[in-house]
């Protein structure tokens, strides 16, 4: 196609609605493969799960071999935020601001029982937010208190699978359903 048409986003939308062509879906796969194999997290650890996250980066359970190469200190350069630790009412606006500062496509992993639902602090605490998903949308939940580093690696692998089945041009939340036939796929897009 012409280069001006290629750069033009409205044309791309029309192309997707009509089903697209094989070249585009191969590009989808390449983009998704690239994204899923190089997710760089933000340094965000509030409490005990942070130590297991550091241990997952340590020589024994190295997660750099999964593509999680470095930790970025600034949210503008990070792809994923691993919410490791309890979120408290005073910290919740800070978490929301960090999430909003991250550029798309961004993902969230809720690590540990505290980030899933408040954990051991569910009953009788007056200041704990019962789960990080009350503040930001979460993609993967990893249970444990604290979860082993191997559990974090499994969670990262699940996130990689989720990214690979995603629509790269969409807002990150559409899924390509491989079992549906071409008609329903076109309808879903």
């Amino acid at each position, binding site marked *: 196609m012409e280069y001006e048409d290629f750069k033009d986003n409205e044309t791309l939308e029309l192309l997707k609605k009509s089903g697209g062509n094989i070249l585009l879906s191969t590009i989808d796969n390449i983009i998704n493969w690239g994204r899923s194999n190089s997710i760089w997290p933000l340094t965000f650890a509030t409490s005990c799960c942070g130590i297991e996250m550091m241990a997952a980066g340590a020589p024994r359970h190295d997660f750099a071999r999964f593509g999680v190469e470095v930790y970025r200190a600034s949210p503008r350069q990070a792809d994923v935020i691993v919410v490791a630790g309890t979120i408290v*009412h005073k910290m919740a606006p800070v978490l929301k601001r960090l999430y909003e500062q991250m550029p798309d496509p961004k993902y969230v992993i809720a690590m540990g029982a505290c980030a899933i639902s408040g954990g051991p602090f569910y009953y009788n605490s007056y200041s704990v937010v019962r789960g990080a998903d009350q503040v930001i949308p979460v993609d993967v939940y990893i249970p444990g208190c604290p979860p082993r580093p191997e559990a974090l690696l499994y969670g990262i692998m699940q996130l990689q699978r989720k990214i690979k089945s995603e629509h790269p041009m969409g807002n990150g939340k559409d899924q390509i359903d491989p079992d549906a036939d071409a008609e329903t796929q076109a309808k879903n897009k």
Partner: protein
Amino acid sequence: MRMENNSLRQRMETLVPDATFPINSQYLELVVPDGLFHEFCLNLKTSPDLLFDYLISLTAIDWKDHYMMVYHLTSTTFRHTVVLKVRIDNRENPQVETVSDIWKTAEFHEREVFDLFGIRFLHHPDLRRLFLDDDYGFPLRKDFADESRMIVK
């Protein structure tokens, strides 16, 4: 010289005749009336045979009709320990003298007690809340209830 509980008790009685001594199996415990509290603490720190210069812990207990401030003090030279208590009877507006000019660490422990109980410390250099928001209640009081945030088992 390290003083045993009996000799400590006699010494305290000379300094504050009105003090009462509840029974405690571990350390010497004394309840001091409110008016003489600050001067007594200064004596505890500066008297050459007592020298209580390290404040281990400062806290408050809510006994439903009164508050009790509890101070654990020890001496780094003689290694004797004493538990000091002050009773606060006013529940609506509890106040007590600060000891942050005697032991600097009390400045922050008192801010924490103010945050969690609402007890005001007179002449404190910077009394503001430490952990919680300014308009939140005082959680460690026994009559505190927050339906929106607490899930009570």
